[in-house]
């Protein structure tokens, strides 16, 4: 019955059969949406409500008898906790640097790959490889296979280079993980995310209107002028999309920090710090308060981000 009514109503034009009340027709339209919507609200929204409630409780799993109403004291503790303040800063630096640097390198490589040359398909495949290594595996590979001061590839290459070119028997052998732990984590993430940015920007480059660029060339525009006034404006929404999606994922990064430094040496970002407060310090109330603050900050950032996507959506609808 419902199936035949759905099919016989002309799509998108609102001529309904007189036998169906508008209200019922509305519910028929909504019906396919409801399972997904209800499922998502239960699984993703209810936990946040629970987090909000727990954030006002005095609740440490190591001291189960001392449980009760805490008012805003958890929030006070969070704001005065230097560890959490530092991890906010770490999260911002990590996200911004990884997103911007991978966008920049990704753009450069996308511009190279946009040209015809021998073996372009192979180079594209090589470029994608970092993104397809499981993040934990990639983090382990960088920690032990590349950064290890004794046998890692980085220092190994330096030794090989020094020996080959006769630069002496004492090549520099930095212990990157202890000297520059933040750069070590960032470099691994940039390596993994550059292919992502490159793929999105390459798709953007290849959707450029070819005739306009040809016309500009004929009119004597320099390559720089073509890039600045035709390519870059066209790429703007692709840059925004890559930046937005990259930020969503990198702000929440847990795998790299957890695996490479275990949050040590000033690399603990917010996800890692909250994880630690939950599952190692067992202070449920304080960790939940931190979680609530992170959620509020995310909502503020997301409101701006969604505006970016909404402009993308309008463009898509227009075209």
């Amino acid at each position, binding site marked *: 019955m419902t199936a035949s009514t759905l099919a*016989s109503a002309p*799509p998108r034009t609102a001529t309904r059969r007189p036998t169906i009340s508008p209200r019922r027709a509305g519910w028929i339209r909504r019906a*396919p949406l409801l399972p997904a919507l209800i499922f998502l609200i239960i699984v*993703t929204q209810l936990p946040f409500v629970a987090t909000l409630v727990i954030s006002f409780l005095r609740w440490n799993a190591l001291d189960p008898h001392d449980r009760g109403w805490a008012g805003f004291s958890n929030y006070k503790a969070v704001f005065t906790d230097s560890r959490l303040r530092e991890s906010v800063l770490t999260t911002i630096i990590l996200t911004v640097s990884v997103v911007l640097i991978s966008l920049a390198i990704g753009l450069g490589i996308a511009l190279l790959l946009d040209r015809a040359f021998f073996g372009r398909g192979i180079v594209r495949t090589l470029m994608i490889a970092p993104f397809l290594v499981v993040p934990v*595996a990639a983090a382990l590979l960088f920690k032990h*296979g590349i950064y290890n001061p004794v046998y890692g*590839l980085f220092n*190994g290459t330096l030794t090989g280079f020094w020996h080959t070119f006769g630069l002496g028997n004492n090549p520099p052998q930095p212990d990157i993980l202890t000297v520059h732990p933040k750069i070590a984590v960032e470099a691994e993430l940039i390596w993994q995310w550059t292919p992502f940015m490159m793929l999105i920007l390459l798709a953007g480059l290849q959707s450029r209107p070819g005739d306009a660029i040809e016309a500009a060339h004929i009119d004597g525009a320099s390559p720089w002028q073509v890039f600045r006034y035709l390519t870059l404006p066209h790429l703007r929404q692709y840059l925004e999309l890559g930046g937005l999606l990259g930020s969503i994922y990198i702000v929440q990064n847990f795998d790299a920090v957890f695996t490479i430094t275990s949050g040590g040496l000033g690399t603990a970002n917010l996800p890692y710090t909250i994880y630690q407060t939950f599952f190692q310090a067992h202070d449920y109330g304080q960790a939940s308060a931190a979680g609530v603050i992170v959620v509020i900050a995310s*909502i503020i950032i997301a409101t701006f981000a969604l505006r970016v*996507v909404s402009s993308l959506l309008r463009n898509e609808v227009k075209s």
Partner: protein
Amino acid sequence: MTRKVWRPWGLFAWLAGILFALPVLWMILTSFHSESDAATNPPSLLAPLTLSGYEEFFGASSGVSPWPPLINSASASIGSTILVLLLSIPAAYALSIKPVRKWSDVLFFFLSTKMLPVVAGTLPIYLFAQFSGLLDNISFLTVLYTSMNLPIAVWLMRSFLAEVPVEMLEAAALDGAGLITTLRRVVAPVAMPGIAATSLICFIFSWNELLFARVLTGVVAGTAPVFLTSFVTSQGLFLAKVCAAATVISLPVLAAGFAAQDKLVQGLSLGAVK
């Protein structure tokens, strides 16, 4: 700039490609070396190849089999991908072909759930699982992976279904075609590439996931990434063994991603790039 000057760009592109692939190639090469050859400085590139790293990964001396975690990962990834498709395709239909009122608000609600930090909801989920006896249960993890990927899938599928030509739907309705026929003849040809891209992305994200798996699983339902984090020993040489493990665990993602490169781009951009 004349056409002849283009050649050096190809060289730069090759250099960039090799530089980015180098860690992966290094990982694969090391996985075939013996532990002592893997830990030399400078690296011994031409050392004899051996399968001992893989034998160790499959439990030759420890007796710990990697198959349970691999099977757990496969069932959570495939199971959640199927659930995601079952939920997202009807939802995308109601957001594009026969849109509900305010469909774009609903669409943004879906995306906004993706922006909330997962870690902030982890404790209640953990406590709930503990309370209901769902800790260390792969089905529970499957449900969580479904919720993690559902917003992405709804966006992706909607972007594909939005391309179903309205005129053809109207023509099908005028010709008296039923819902099933319309879906099969008009919607499916447009939706199939979308379903493929969605499945690929959902599979990769579930296969890679660490935080939930780490918090919610233990000996029984541990997934491949969790197994990998426990794989590094504090004593002795282990690099070849770790590289072999990393290679095996990345293999499904590498294979799927290389085989469907164009779907990968569509999926990563939530369907904004086709």
